[in-house]
């Protein structure tokens, strides 16, 4: 079999594939020519008998006659070599030996045909025609075999019966040279054409192999891609007893490395990672790259989850050593999720999804570890899927409710409320925001939901205001997606006008994480909102970066101390609260403490000059419709909720 002329740009797999493509195409061609040649031989046999019958049916001796030997030759050519050759071509199509047998038979048929037709010069062209037909094989060796048979025939007859070849009793010794020349002349062109055709077939096969390889492999790492993984999984699925594992591996903070060092180094890093991971696995185990920094290993015959975990551990260990790329030394870890076949699913998509879920759990547990998917995860995943599905209908079907938790001033007077979203699911009942807000953010539904919250809160707040009374404000949480929309300021203005609420009564609570994604743009938005009169509060202060430089730069009015600080009543916690409040006051910010649940917390925060307090100690969130009633009794002094305070203390 002919090899690649230039092996360098081709991988072993590509070469193998190209040979497979070529072999398949060549076998197909050879089988077709086998069939054609066997039919031709059959036709020649019939033609041979007809011609022998027409030209020399009998030999005459006076008035008596016998069947001419030519007639016998024509008849016996069939069982002698034509029929056996046809049988071989049917039994062993596309075999190399079949081609050579056909070549021999074809040339013998030509020789017999020439002889039985009286050696006419026209029938000599049958030799050339036969060579041309054999050239359909595109196998020059077949032409050589055919030529050797013809040459042997001419050599033998040329020596002992030259007149049977050359038509004269005594001939010029150079006559055979002329005969040989004509055959060699045709052979030259036919062999040349065959070789060119073969080269063309190789070119097509190489191209096809390249496309095939590209379709099933990741170009960057050379690993199988998702499609190949699916095929491998499909092949392995034929064994119902098999126990396999899907190991989903995601690089930790790869994006950070990619963004800071550039995509070129990022690509090199991925290639090195792929190399290391592949070295851990055996030939029977498939490692695929299915996304940016996501790899999936298909482990066959793992038996137990422990074995899969063991392999995953080795994959993680392989990542431990530093990667050295272009003078950079990079330390990288990965998070791994594992799902098992058939326990966690029977199709690859399901298994991959569950391994992905497990991987996210691993990330949430602190990265650089491995987690096996569990039934609990499955249950949660099912709920998440249901929530994701139902969330789309929650807003149009009015399943959301707003509750308001009061913010009290230093004299426990109610100064405002924080709007809190509640979802009353028709089946699952009350679903906490922590369950559905991340899903809403992921799906983009948060923008619509956030706008609804803003509108409802503004509408309620406008209703709370009474002539001559102290104004009651409302605080609304704003998501990152919502805040980053270019028309966010216009939407706020429009809603305020629609609801007839003074901008100064609206406080937008934004987390620090949302603001520092793009500080310049955030400042632009905040300044615009503040110019409108809207107040800005930095939510969950103390849990994120809490960068002092950002605190100075961001145009906020209030910071909201996170409940985790409020709970730290003694030691360093108290000192931090004290410092934060003092610092905020010094730069002109008000401080709201949330999560106040006991009287001691409230007293201490008041002693530390905290401006406003919020928490169950004063009141749990109140349904929107009940707020006017609540205000009627608590507007000037919000008495602690003793029921809750006692429960909390308990």
């Amino acid at each position: 079999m002919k090899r690649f002329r230039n092996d360098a740009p081709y991988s072993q797999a590509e070469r193998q594939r190209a040979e497979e493509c070529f072999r398949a195409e060549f076998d197909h061609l050879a089988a077709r020519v086998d069939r054609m040649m066997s039919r031709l031989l059959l036709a020649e046999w019939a033609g041979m008998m007809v011609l022998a019958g027409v030209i020399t049916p009998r030999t005459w001796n006076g008035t008596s006659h016998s069947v001419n030997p030519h007639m016998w030759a024509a008849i016996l050519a069939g069982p002698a070599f034509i029929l056996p050759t046809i049988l071989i071509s049917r039994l062993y199509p596309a075999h190399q030996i079949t081609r050579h047998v056909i070549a021999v038979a074809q040339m013998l048929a030509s020789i017999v045909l020439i002889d039985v037709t009286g050696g006419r010069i026209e029938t000599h062209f049958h030799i050339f025609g036969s060579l041309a037909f054999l050239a359909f094989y595109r196998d020059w060796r077949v032409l050589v075999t055919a030529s050797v048979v013809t040459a042997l025939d001419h050599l033998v007859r040329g020596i002992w019966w030259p007149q049977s070849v050359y038509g004269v009793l005594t001939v010029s010794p150079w006559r055979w040279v002329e005969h040989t020349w004509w055959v060699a002349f045709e052979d030259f062109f036919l062999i040349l054409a065959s070789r060119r055709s073969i080269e063309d077939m190789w070119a097509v096969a190489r191209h096809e192999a390249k496309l095939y390889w590209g379709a099933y492999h990741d170009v960057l790492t050379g690993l199988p891609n998702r499609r190949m993984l699916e095929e491998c999984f499909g092949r392995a699925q034929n064994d119902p007893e098999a126990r396999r594992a899907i190991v989903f591996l995601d690089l930790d903070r790869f994006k950070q490395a990619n963004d800071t060092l550039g995509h070129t180094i990022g690509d090199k890093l991925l290639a090195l990672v792929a190399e290391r991971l592949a070295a851990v696995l055996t030939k029977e185990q498939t490692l695929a790259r299915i996304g940016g920094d996501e790899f999936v290993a298909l482990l066959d015959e793992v038996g137990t989850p422990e074995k899969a975990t063991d392999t995953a551990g080795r994959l993680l260990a392989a990542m431990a050593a530093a990667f050295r790329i272009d003078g950079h030394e990079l330390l990288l870890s990965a998070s791994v999720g594992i799902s098992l076949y058939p326990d966690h699913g029977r199709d690859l998509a399901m298994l991959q999804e569950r391994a992905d879920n497990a991987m996210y759990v691993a990330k949430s547990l602190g990265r650089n570890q491995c987690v096996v998917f569990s039934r609990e995860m499955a249950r949660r995943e099912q709920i998440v899927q249901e929530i994701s599905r139902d969330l789309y209908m929650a807003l149009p079907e009015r399943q959301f409710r707003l509750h308001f938790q009061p913010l009290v001033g230093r004299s426990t007077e109610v100064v405002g409320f924080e709007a809190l979203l509640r979802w009353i699911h028709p089946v699952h009942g009350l679903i906490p925001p922590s369950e559905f807000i991340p899903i809403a953010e992921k799906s983009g539904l948060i923008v619509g939901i956030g706008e609804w919250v803003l509108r409802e809160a503004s509408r309620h707040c406008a209703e709370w205001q009474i002539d001559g009374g102290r104004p009651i404000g409302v605080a609304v949480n704003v998501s990152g997606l919502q805040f980053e929309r270019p028309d966010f300021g216009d939407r706020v203005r429009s809603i305020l006008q629609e609801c007839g609420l003074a901008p100064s009564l609206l406080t937008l609570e934004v987390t620090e994480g949302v603001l520092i994604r793009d500080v310049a743009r955030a400042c632009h938005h905040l300044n615009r909102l503040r110019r409108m009169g809207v107040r800005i509060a930095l939510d969950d202060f103390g849990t994120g970066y809490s960068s002092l430089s950002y605190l100075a730069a961001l145009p906020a009015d209030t910071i909201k101390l996170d409940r985790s600080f409020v709970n730290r009543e003694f030691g360093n916690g108290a000192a931090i609260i004290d410092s934060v409040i003092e610092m905020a006051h010094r730069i002109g910010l008000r401080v709201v403490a949330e999560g106040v649940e006991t009287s001691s917390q409230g007293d201490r925060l008041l002693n530390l000059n905290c401006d406003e307090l919020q928490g169950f100690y004063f009141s749990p969130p109140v349904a929107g419709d009940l707020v006017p009633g609540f205000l009627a009794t608590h507007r000037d002094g919000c008495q602690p909720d003793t029921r809750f305070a006692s429960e909390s203390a308990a």
Partner: protein
Amino acid sequence: MCFAVIATLWGMRILIGFDQTAGAMGVAPARWPAPSEIPRDPARPQLLVFVHPFCPCSAATLEELERMTARRTRTSVQPQMTVLFVRPRGAKGWRSAGLWDTARQLAGAHVMWDEDGQEAHRFGALTSGDILLYEAHGILLFHGGVTGSRGHAGDNYGADELTLALDSGRPVRAPQMVFGCSLAGVGLLAPARE
């Protein structure tokens, strides 16, 4: 396949043996026999061709003669050609083999039956395709066949020698072999009734 090759070679050996086996050669009279009833032009050489009406091999002989006639120019010596088809006296249907019509198409050829092969016997022709050339005065110049083997038309020494004899007017040295069916069958070539 070996069997097929061997069988084919063996068959070819038989075929070649058959093709290359010349027919019997009689002794032709050195001068034109006086009792012959074949019409003769005393001004031109006389070319006689004896043919078995059913002999397939003789088709090659007629083909060679046609080729030779076509090659000869007007200035060359044009012999008077007589094709004699040998048959038992009174036999019917012997014209149907097709050779008769082929012979009729030869330029300037006179075609006739040789009943019981009397003329063939007279001229010593024992094999279909036997050709004799006598010069205008009745001297034998050529005797033999003009094909290389049975039924094989194509270049051969017999045809070359016949052309040479015609052009030079001198006899060839040795008789050429005749490839064709036998004329010496039962009931044929009976002694001429002289």
